[in-house]
């Protein structure tokens, strides 16, 4: 061993400032752990997961996934009784894992073919096959397997004060932004009817057809449904081991019964499951998270739910502590879609402190598109998210919209301008104010309406008498205040259109079309589901593609600027310079040429940093004169490149020195005997320059001309300048090149600004 080697092994680790810097980042608040299978802390392909197995004798299952009938728990029994299609099972289970995996990503194998096979696959086989796909293959499979043609999104709408005006305003904003479903909940359970009413009113103010739910305890939830205040529910959790299922106070039969009970009252039902819950609740039986989730999703399908909210949901941070966690979560979404279920694919609970890591995880669902890309995008600041969610929130909206625009991907959220958002927020708050007044609920004040319209979060809302609110909520439930009552209240107060939208939602309950898989409702009342608007993707040129009017709409972020208008600032009326005549070479050794670009102080009037060209010229002239030189302004017309502008100027300069400057403000000090692309000093950070900088450039140019000792003008470095300004640079330079007159000789310019003013 070398001396250095032994030194390295024996000495304690030195502390490095870079390690310390990384350790202080947000990411490092989270624990990463090595897999520990016995506690279920393994994301997928666990060492204790059973081999896929299905033995059928005389038409009956006798063994499944490592267990004999006698050892079947309630989940196994339920799956055998209701989930597996035995006529398909023999064929499907006999196929090699890899062959099925390849079918999932083969554009020439139809979705319907692989969905049919899935009906005969056991949970272990589903997990095993999904485990064979790499992340890009999983994304591709998800895109192909999604039930509904077009993706959509779901919003969370809550606030810490349970303010009805703010709930209505946020619901309206979410709806106008294109969310197809809105979910609220309660901090205090008794608030449920009031929150459900606020959400109903707000949603239909923003866009008719948006579905709403209020996540509360089942009895209360069913009451809200019976009264027509909500249209969907996704509170029905299932688990992958019997012990956790029972600890959750349910069985597959009780949950399946509840699902049918909800459907009987016109509620679209979506179950909830997700990797990690069994490990968190302490009974994983040493199985991997993905295998247990495959059991959950199989139960969901067997119970007859049209869909599932999955993608780890509230346990996401636990799954992400493990190697392959992000991939396992994507794999569970794929299994759910493969089982022909609507998928609301998580991304609601906070996945990471790190924005980078969180968004890397999101891409798995965002790029393929799912029925609901998030199970709850927080339309309000996450501080107000009483689900404990807010993985993405109000402050992240522009990022989300920009990433949609970057990838040409429909993530289910539409850009809407401030005027429209505040208009619809105010209208919703007014509407809920009217409903509360008509129904004899505690009044919503004008101050609340105003704060809900323009405030940031609940801390901007006036406090309400919460004791009076919960009392009124109890009475509302007792009086069975219904969706129809809400519509009539709006009608009496002149909100005719919102009243009609709410009646239309009541009519949807009568036809019950939204109980089918992946249903959402268009503004005109048309239900779109996997039945009448299925995903038929079979490769490029097929399926849902973001194009046409929808693509135009998703591009048009409110802050997108018109390229034609960029860089048109500055005074374009007053003349800054006047052409004197064709320039000839000077002879005065004290002469410094200021060579400006073709558009300088003409078609373009200010630098990229917004400095008026007249002020810039004045600063350069002042600097040069102070240093004892004689400045002379020349316009180079034949070329727009700063090196050639400066070099052409140097050829004309009596001293052989010129300061060349482009319209955007980039400058070079050049000397006649140098090659054009060489220079004395280059000033390439135009966005950072002040008039003082240009004055110093003038001084330095003079210094070179007069043979003085010259220290370079101090320049700063901004690594973000390019990202920030490259568009402006491009546009300004384009206008400069448009002003080029090929072969035109340079001309002398007179500065229109008298020396006294300078």
């Amino acid at each position, binding site marked *: 061993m070398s001396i250095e080697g032994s030194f390295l092994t024996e000495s304690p680790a030195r502390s490095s400032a870079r390690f310390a810097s990384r350790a202080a980042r947000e990411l490092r608040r989270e624990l990463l752990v090595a897999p520990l299978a016995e506690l279920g802390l393994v994301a997928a392909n666990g060492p204790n997961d059973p081999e896929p197995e299905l033995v059928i004798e005389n038409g009956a299952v006798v063994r499944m996934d490592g267990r004999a009938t006698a050892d079947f728990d309630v989940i196994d029994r339920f799956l055998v009784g209701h989930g597996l299609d035995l006529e398909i099972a023999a064929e499907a289970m006999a196929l090699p894992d890899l062959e099925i995996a390849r079918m999932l990503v083969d554009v020439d194998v139809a979705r319907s073919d692989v969905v049919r096979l899935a009906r005969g696959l056991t949970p272990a086989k589903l997990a095993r096959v999904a485990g064979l796909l790499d992340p890009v293959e999983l994304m591709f499979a998800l895109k192909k397997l999604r039930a509904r043609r077009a993706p959509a999104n779901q919003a969370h709408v809550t606030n810490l004060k349970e303010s009805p005006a703010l709930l209505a305003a946020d619901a309206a904003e979410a709806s106008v932004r294109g969310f197809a479903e809105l979910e609220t909940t309660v901090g205090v359970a008794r608030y449920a009817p009031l929150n459900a009413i606020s959400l109903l009113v707000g949603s239909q103010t923003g866009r008719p057809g948006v579905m709403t739910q209020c996540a509360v305890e089942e009895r209360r939830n069913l009451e809200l449904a019976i009264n027509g205040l909500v249209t969907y529910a996704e509170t029905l959790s299932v688990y992958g081991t019997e012990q956790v299922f029972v600890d959750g106070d349910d069985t597959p*039969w009780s949950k399946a019964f509840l699902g049918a009970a909800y459907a*009987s009252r016109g509620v679209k039902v979506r179950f909830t499951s997700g990797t990690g819950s069994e490990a968190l609740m302490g009974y994983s039986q040493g199985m991997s998270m993905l295998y247990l989730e495959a059991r959950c999703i199989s139960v969901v399908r067997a119970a007859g739910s049209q869909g599932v909210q999955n993608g780890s949901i509230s346990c996401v941070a636990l799954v992400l502590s493990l190697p392959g966690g992000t991939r396992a979560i994507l794999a569970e979404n794929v299994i759910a879609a493969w089982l022909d279920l609507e998928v609301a694919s998580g991304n609601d609970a906070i996945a990471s402190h790190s924005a980078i890591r969180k968004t890397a995880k999101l891409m798995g669902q965002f790029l393929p598109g799912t029925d609901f890309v998030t199970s709850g995008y927080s339309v309000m600041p996450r501080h107000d998210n009483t689900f404990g969610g807010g993985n993405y929130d109000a402050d992240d909206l522009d990022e989300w919209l920009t990433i949609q625009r970057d990838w040409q991907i429909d993530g289910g959220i539409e850009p809407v301008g401030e005027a429209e958002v505040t208009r619809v927020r105010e209208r919703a708050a007014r509407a809920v104010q009217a409903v509360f007044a008509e129904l004899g609920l505690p009044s919503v004040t004008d101050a609340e309406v105003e704060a809900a319209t323009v405030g940031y979060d609940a801390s901007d809302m006036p406090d309400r008498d919460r004791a009076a609110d919960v009392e009124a909520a109890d009475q509302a439930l007792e009086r069975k205040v219904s969706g129809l009552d809400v519509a009539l209240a709006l009608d009496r107060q002149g909100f005719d259109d919102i009243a009609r939208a709410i*009646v239309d939602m009541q009519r949807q309950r*009568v036809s019950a079309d939204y109980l089918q*898989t992946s249903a959402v409702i268009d503004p005109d009342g048309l239900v779109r589901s996997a039945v009448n608007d299925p995903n038929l993707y079979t490769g490029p040129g097929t399926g849902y593609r973001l194009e046409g009017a929808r693509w135009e709409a998703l591009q048009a972020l409110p802050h997108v600027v018109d390229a034609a208008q960029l860089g048109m600032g500055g005074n374009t009326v007053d003349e800054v310079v006047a052409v004197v005549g064709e320039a000839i070479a000077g002879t005065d050794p004290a002469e410094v040429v200021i060579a400006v670009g073709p558009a300088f102080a003409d078609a373009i009037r200010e630098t990229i940093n917004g400095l008026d060209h007249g002020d810039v010229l004045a600063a350069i002239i002042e600097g040069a004169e102070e240093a004892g030189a004689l400045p002379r302004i020349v316009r180079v017309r034949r070329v727009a490149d700063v090196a050639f502008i400066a070099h052409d100027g140097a050829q004309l300069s009596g001293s052989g020195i010129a300061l060349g400057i482009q319209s955007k403000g980039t400058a070079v000090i050049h000397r006649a005997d140098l090659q054009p692309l060489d220079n004395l000093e280059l000033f390439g950070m135009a966005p950072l320059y002040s008039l003082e900088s240009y004055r110093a450039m003038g001084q330095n140019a003079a210094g070179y001309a007069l043979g003085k000792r010259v220290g370079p003008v101090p320049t700063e470095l901004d690594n973000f300048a390019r990202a920030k300004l490259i568009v402006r640079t491009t546009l300004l330079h384009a206008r400069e090149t448009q002003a080029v007159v090929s072969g035109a000789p340079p001309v002398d310019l007179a500065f229109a600004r008298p020396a006294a003013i300078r």
Partner: protein
Amino acid sequence: MTFDPTVDYPLGTRRPDLVETPSGLALGEVTLEAARSGTLVAADVRATPATLRRQAEVARVAGRRQLADSLGRAAELAGVPDDQLLEIYTALRPGRSTAGELEEWAQRLDGWEAPLTAAFVREAAVAYVDRGLVLD
């Protein structure tokens, strides 16, 4: 015209003639005007067993057997009183009922003309007994 589950979905837009409220109002009569005049009341704003059975058929021909089964149970439960729904749910939760009590619920369901759901409860009872999820 008879109902064809392969083409008649969505019922609300394709076959409104087949959809009515429990009291017999046509779907087209579920309007704000009807609510104003009092001909439409909240209790009547819900799907009928017939509508839910049609939705079950739509699911079945779309290849969704389990969803169809669930909608079939929903059609039966549409006629079960609201308060009883949650009683049955509670009875089906683990460790809440004896096998006999579950059988009593199954018989009540038979009485409500809900044979599919009754069978479902009986099936649960057998599983619960085997797995120790019933009261003694």
